[in-house]
């Protein structure tokens, strides 16, 4: 099938984008790489009278250090992020998540802003943003604001962005030196959306032998209407020796809205999710202990 007819806009500035958004309201949608939106339009799962292409908008691409944080422009492609030495060195979880997104042709077009704004519950970048407490920058005619990732994902394909807001960039704050990061997912075929997945970040206490975990984040994807952050319970002082299987079981124990479809009933997805948490936990701890 082909998309329903739409009017195409390609403004040259973020101001023009938000002005158009506030003028056109719900009948307009921002298009970046189009790797999720275009198939949905073509299947007529959705339709918009206006598409606002942000390819010509300046200032939306790039990866740079900004003070204590690393800023990534919303229009930066997943391929660019996957190849960036700065991302690999400062936000390794994001770098490791990138090859799991679709196939390379998709990553050449797909953008980080598109991934976050589309907010698929089974996608990798939203789960990474949630685990790392990313700041999501949005611009509207009222100005610029930063939305914490924890407040950003509000429901199925739904975010805290207002109808007249444009996602302009994402900021990540690098973790300390004794940290470890891992992301694991299971998909039916390479490049498919994950049946379930988990991203884990851990930071160990000071000194070179301490095994106390001072900071830890686990996020799940494909296991609810949004990516989910697991609320960490109390971990003992030798927490780094906690077995991944225990963590995995605990992480999925209280999930209430696990999707169920052709590729797996809810109980199966929880089981896969627990296994992905266990693998990611073990790898993240190993990395943190090896630093």
């Amino acid at each position: 099938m082909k998309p329903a007819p739409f009017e195409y806009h390609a403004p040259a500035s973020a101001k023009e984008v938000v002005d158009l958004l506030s003028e056109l309201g719900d009948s307009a949608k921002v298009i970046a790489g189009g790797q999720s939106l275009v198939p949905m339009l073509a299947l007529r799962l959705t339709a918009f009278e206006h598409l606002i292409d942000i390819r010509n908008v300046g200032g939306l691409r790039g990866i740079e250090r900004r003070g204590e944080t690393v800023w990534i422009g919303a229009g930066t492609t997943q391929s660019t992020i996957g190849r960036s030495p700065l991302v690999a060195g400062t936000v390794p979880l994001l770098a490791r998540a990138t090859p799991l997104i679709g196939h390379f042709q998709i990553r050449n077009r797909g953008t980080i802003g598109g991934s976050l704004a589309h907010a698929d519950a089974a996608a990798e970048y939203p789960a990474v943003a949630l685990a790392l407490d990313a700041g999501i920058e949005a611009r509207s005619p009222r100005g610029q604001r930063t939305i914490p990732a924890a407040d950003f994902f509000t429901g199925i394909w739904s975010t805290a962005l207002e109808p007249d807001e444009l996602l302009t960039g994402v900021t990540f704050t690098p973790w300390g030196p004794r940290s470890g990061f891992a992301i694991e997912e299971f998909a039916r075929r390479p490049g498919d959306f994950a049946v379930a997945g988990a991203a884990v970040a851990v930071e160990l206490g000071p000194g070179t032998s301490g095994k106390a975990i001072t900071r830890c984040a686990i996020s799940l994807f494909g296991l609810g209407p949004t990516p989910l952050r697991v609320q960490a319970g109390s971990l003992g002082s030798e927490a780094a020796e906690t077995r991944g299987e225990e963590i995995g079981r605990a992480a999925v124990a209280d999930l209430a809205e696990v999707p169920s479809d052709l590729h797996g009933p809810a109980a199966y997805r929880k089981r896969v999710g627990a296994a992905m948490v266990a693998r990611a936990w073990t790898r993240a701890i190993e990395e943190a202990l090896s630093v």
Partner: protein
Amino acid sequence: MINPAIVEGQIAGGVVQGIGGALLEEVAYDADGNPVATTFMDYLLPTAAMVPEIEYGHVETSPPSVGGYKGVGEGGAIGAPPAVVNAVADALAPLGVTVTRAPLTPAAIIALIEAARGAGVSP
């Protein structure tokens, strides 16, 4: 063989189609009879990224036709499904699992294992 590349291309295509039938392709319906695998997002075909290396062996015979020619088709589609399904059945046999349906999706295999456990078959 007049053109081995075509012969082996046919076999490869058939083998891959057979693997797809054994592990992926499912014409599924919901309880009300609505088809649920209506796009290639849900009706999964094997892709180039997941095809194993295929080795070919040929036995050449000539039929009593004019010139002794005969065609060759997607014969791999006949052998691949039982090869894959029997391999899975063999792997699961110690768990007391009997495989009776395809495709053998990951969720279906887990369900089979759990059903065998529930039936009291000791692993």
